């Protein structure tokens, strides 16, 4: 490690922090007397610019991570790079959707917190060390609690933030507890070494500790990705938080958390290769020996098998519960929350059957990025409708196709994509993910779980159609137009076009993701 490396690898985070300070400076200093609209616009634009610069910084940092001794602290390039760019782009979009929001007078602070939280996300995406992971998570989470509570006039917002905070604090405690067990078992905080050590320890009789540790970690991380049974905060938070905050939680926070999952799963499979790079060539003698050894290790509980089992339980529970609970919702925000739980279930399935090559990682990133984009768009629509009708009930969407045809069409595209209808991007994401699962494991369990996932996504069509039915089919109660800021509309339209375009040309995004490896 040297300062040049430190500067290079943490440049994106640095850029975001600087941007956050600049936003605060501009808002509290230069524009103190300006109208709220101007201040919001300025803050959002500044923040967006910051994100853009940070994207450049991600490219600038290259593929070499930040190491301390033999231990990698922050990775660069690969999955981390993809996730970071994704986080930045989604943050920028969320910022742009902020422009005609009026839930707070403290626009600069809001944007600054958001940028800092995003910086936390960047750290999580790159972290390779338990402690760095924890720091990143806390940075992100604290930002999110604040963002959730930001609508100070709304009791719901405060309630949502409180719930979120309590659950979050609890889960952070569990996570830390789990991490401490891992440390006990392995004597290291560097992830590959942790897993190596844990496997050895488990082989030597440390299984009970490992089990406890895994469950604790699952509780801590499951909370972040709204996996059942750690999802309870999600519906209330999605419902109560200001729309941009909810969008941010649903997208950016998800991307970061799943990037962390990818890191863990990938490392669990490849720790030997990472620790001893000369073993890395598949087909070489040493490689075959390695596989054989790890195969024998699997006869007892290893980190990998335990991790996969936990993920499968979470995945199945999330898919089933998320989809079934969504059927009963009448609030679109809550519906999106439960659908987020369901989508998390699908992704967890992909993580449970993780390929030691990059196929699964790429498929999951593809899924989470496109899902994040679609969800941000969906929340954008919800926030526009909410502002016009004062409600996020499904019935607020009645006759939307008359009241704003363009917004109706955008809703159609986004919700169908969430349901996974081709040729929209949501379909390719699912297809990619499930193909990766089946490509990794030919077992009938895997096929059965994929069948369950697909069956559940068939169920999901029902509730997405419930929204679209109100948009297109049922008669409007009111005929007044639903108006939205041109920038908002433009952003939403671009999201919809991207959903269609990436769906028609799925290779574009796949190619872009692959270019990081």
């Amino acid at each position, binding site marked *: 490690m040297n300062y040049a490396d430190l500067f290079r690898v943490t440049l994106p985070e640095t850029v975001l922090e600087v941007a956050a300070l600049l936003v605060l400076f501009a808002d509290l200093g230069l524009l103190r007397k300006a109208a709220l609209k101007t201040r919001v616009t300025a803050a959002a634009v500044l923040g967006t610019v910051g994100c853009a610069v940070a994207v450049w910084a991600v490219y600038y940092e290259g593929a070499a991570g930040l190491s301390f001794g033999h231990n990698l602290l922050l990775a660069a390039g690969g999955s981390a790079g993809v996730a970071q760019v994704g986080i930045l782009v989604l943050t920028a979009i969320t910022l742009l959707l902020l422009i005609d929001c009026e839930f707070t007078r403290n626009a600069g602070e809001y944007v600054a917190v958001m940028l800092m939280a995003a910086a936390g996300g960047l750290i999580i995406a790159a972290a390779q060390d338990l402690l760095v992971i924890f720091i990143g998570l806390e940075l992100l989470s604290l930002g999110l609690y604040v963002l959730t509570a930001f609508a100070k006039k709304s009791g719901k917002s405060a309630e949502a933030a409180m719930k979120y905070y309590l659950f979050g604090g609890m889960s952070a405690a569990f996570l830390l507890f789990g991490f401490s067990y891992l440390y006990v078992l392995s004597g290291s905080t560097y992830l590959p070494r942790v897993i190596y050590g844990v496997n050895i320890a488990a082989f030597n009789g440390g299984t009970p500790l490992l089990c406890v540790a895994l469950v604790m970690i699952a509780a801590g991380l499951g909370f972040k990705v709204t996996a059942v049974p750690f999802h309870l905060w999600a519906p209330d938070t999605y419902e109560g938080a200001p729309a941009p905050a909810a969008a941010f939680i649903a997208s950016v926070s998800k991307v970061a958390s799943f990037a962390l999952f990818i890191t863990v799963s990938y490392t669990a499979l490849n720790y030997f290769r990472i620790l001893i790079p000369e073993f890395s060539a598949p087909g070489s003698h040493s490689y075959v020996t390695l596989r054989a050894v790890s195969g024998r290790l699997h006869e007892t509980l290893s980190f990998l098998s335990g991790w996969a089992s936990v993920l499968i339980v979470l995945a199945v529970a999330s898919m089933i519960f998320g989809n079934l609970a969504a059927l009963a919702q009448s609030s679109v925000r809550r519906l999106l929350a439960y659908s987020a739980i369901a989508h998390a279930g699908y992704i967890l399935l992909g993580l449970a059957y993780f390929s030691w090559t990059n196929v699964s990682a790429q498929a999951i990133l593809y899924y989470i990025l496109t899902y994040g984009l679609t969800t941000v768009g969906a929340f954008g629509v919800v926030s526009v409708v909410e502002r016009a009708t004062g409600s996020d009930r499904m019935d607020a969407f009645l006759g939307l196709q008359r009241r704003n045809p363009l917004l109706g069409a955008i809703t159609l595209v986004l919700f169908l994509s969430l349901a996974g*209808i081709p040729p929209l991007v949501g*379909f*390719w994401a699912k297809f990619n993910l499930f*193909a990766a699962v089946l490509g990794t494991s030919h077992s009938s369990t895997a096929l059965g779980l994929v069948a369950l996932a*697909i069956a559940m996504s068939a169920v999901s069509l029902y509730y997405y159609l419930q929204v679209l*039915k109100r948009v*297109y089919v049922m008669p409007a109660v009111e005929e007044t137009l639903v108006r939205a800021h041109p920038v908002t509309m433009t952003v939403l339209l671009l999201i919809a076009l991207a959903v269609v375009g990436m769906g028609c040309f799925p*290779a574009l995004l796949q190619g872009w993701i692959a270019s990081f490896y």
Partner: protein
Amino acid sequence: MAWTIYISFAGALLEALLPKDRHGLARWLALAVALAGLVIAVAAYAAGMGQGTTVIADALWVPSMGIHYKLAADGISRVLVLLTGLASVAGVLFSWNIELRTNQFFAFYLALIGGVYGVFLSFDLFLLFVFYEIAIVPKYFLIAIWGSTRREYGAMKLALYSFAGSAMVLIGLLAAYAASGSHSTTLADLAHAGLPVPMQMGLFPLVFVGFAILAGMWPFHTWAPTGHVAAPTAASMLLAGVVMKLGAYGCLRVAMGVFPRGLDPWGFSLLGLGSWRDVFALLAVVGIVYGALVALAQSDFKFVIGYSSVSHMGFVLLGLMTLNQIGLDGAVLQMFSHGVIAGLLFAIVGRIVYDRTHTRQLAELETMHLAKRLPFAAWAFVIAGIASMGLPGFSGFVAELQVLVGAWNARPWWTVAAGVGVIVGVAYTWRALQKAFFSDRLPTPDEHPKTGWHDLGAITWPEIAGVALLGISTIVVGLYPRILLDSIEPAVKALLAGGVQ
């Protein structure tokens, strides 16, 4: 031929962008698009006569997964594209009186048509699946927005059944794709991937049932009558005319084409059923007879036609399960035939009669003397009805005869059972015809004949044109089936040689 797809989608987009109140423009645009599709289909059909499979487009679409954008056409595709062209033009003609959100109606309509064209022309499994799903969503909106009786229920039921079916298909496809390891999803590559026989036997029923749901296979048919009844005329025409064919086509092209060994005997027999072939043939036969019997008992005119579709599609599935040349020929021909005839029947019931009388109850129609008041409808229904009964001279006869012959060559008792269905078919059609148009029952006293009749409105030119288009199609094919069979036979032969035993 690929332009049939492109212009349909382009047309859909244009319709969506049209101003709301330009109804006339929307109609003419839709008609122009549909006609262009038909012209291309006819030209391509004529040009493709005597040729085998012609590749229209083949590009690598998703390189990392070996998914190709491969459009091609063989004799079967050409026939079904032709059918789609006919049905789409007729559908537009019978939708001429749509006044509510006209441009949106035709936008969904053309999107559906584009998807259907796409399915029939796709020779890559995932491309096919994509188009297949594209066709599902517009259906929902067409029914839910412009439908009639219990439209939201019917539409949702249809959408969920379709989606459940396509979910099953997707599972099968993913498994086949993962297992083949060939990194290509073209139908030919998957068919030659040499999937293990037990796997084929496991996946075949999944995919077959997935598609057959849309083809109205008993006992997964229940969406069909409610969907048909709820749908607006053009949508029921398309639903029965081409969408159900999507399912049957998928069964043939995908389930049987990719998992040919799935039809092999299990090696044991359960209740006399020794293979999936026996199972599905049994379901097809049950569908034929059940559909016909239920149609006989309906009091709603449209339900009669809806259940008749179930019965007629049973013939398609039965023909597929014969696994011999003549039976498969018959199945494909029956797809065309039923597409045209059911389209015609739904057009008469839904557009010409219902839109004027506002009732579909046979008991009420009985008192209306429609043969005198709507002679055009009555005689059009006579033609469509006898075509549907399978009288010689109409396409249904040749098709069903071939299916029956093929079934006989495979398992004689199938033919016997299906023959019962044919006879009941005559009965229910005749019953509907008598009750709806030619009844002698006197009207209630307060509606004195002639003086009490309100004006039912003249028959309009689009209706005449639509009836003529479909009626002539069925008669031409009935009198000269070779016009299609010459194209179907080589394609079926190739399919049979390609693995389907």
